[in-house]
């Protein structure tokens, strides 16, 4: 799943920076799961787009994954200029002890 996400984002957005993190282990899912991801994308395609539109581009590229195995996707979308201003990726901790019912609803994301 992770490699598919990477490949599709590469293809759709030609990112300068693409960082993908599988954060599934922080959630109540079986070991080795690929359900919760965080992605940081730096791409010139985001120029002139508001955050909502940027996220929609990422969602569109990953429609298949989001409709299937991927339960949660945190997105940071920056333009190259924004990346130069702040070349750090946020790592917001979303680990959460409560089960987020991923097992039950795995197929309905």
């Amino acid at each position, binding site marked *: 799943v992770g490699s598919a996400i990477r490949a599709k984002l590469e293809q759709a957005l030609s990112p300068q920076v693409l960082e993908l993190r599988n954060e599934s282990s922080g*959630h109540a899912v079986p070991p080795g799961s690929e359900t919760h991801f965080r992605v940081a994308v730096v791409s010139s395609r985001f120029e002139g787009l508001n955050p*909502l539109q940027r996220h929609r581009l990422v969602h569109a590229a990953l429609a298949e994954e989001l409709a299937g195995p991927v339960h*949660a996707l945190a997105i940071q979308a920056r333009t190259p200029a924004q990346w130069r201003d702040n070349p750090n990726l946020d790592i*917001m*901790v979303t680990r959460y002890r409560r089960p*987020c*019912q991923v097992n039950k609803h795995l197929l*309905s994301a």
Partner: protein
Amino acid sequence: MSGSLGRASAALLHLGRGVLLRGPALRTRSSGPGGSGLASREHLDALVKKDKVVVFLKGTPQQPQCGFSNAVVQILRLHGVTSYAAYDVLEDPDLRQGIKDYSNWPTIPQVYLNGEFVGGCDILLQMHQNGDLVEELKKLGIRSALLDANTDQDSK
């Protein structure tokens, strides 16, 4: 409008289940027990416009069932926004799928300000960090509590 009002209205809408159901178009991927008028576009449209601040969560503000939903609740709390309508999508699979179709957004939580879809957890967090949220709340006539806590504002 109080949070309890929001919940009361959510309950009212539950009573109206099925009344506004227009067809299966919005419910192709869910077959919740009994169907639900909450999933119709008209109904969701009314729902998100009924209160100034509307959120769709996994769980409740008191007991979020997911880290992202929890983050949304905490951000609103930081800004002193206590009166908002919160709907728990785990209560209703039709609502869960319906709101995703309505906003064309694949994940929960979802935040609506003044009837307009704002985004999910990441975007709300970003708006919180860059000050946009304070401005957007001001447009709704809500004064962010962070404006009053000017000493240690947003130390995150």
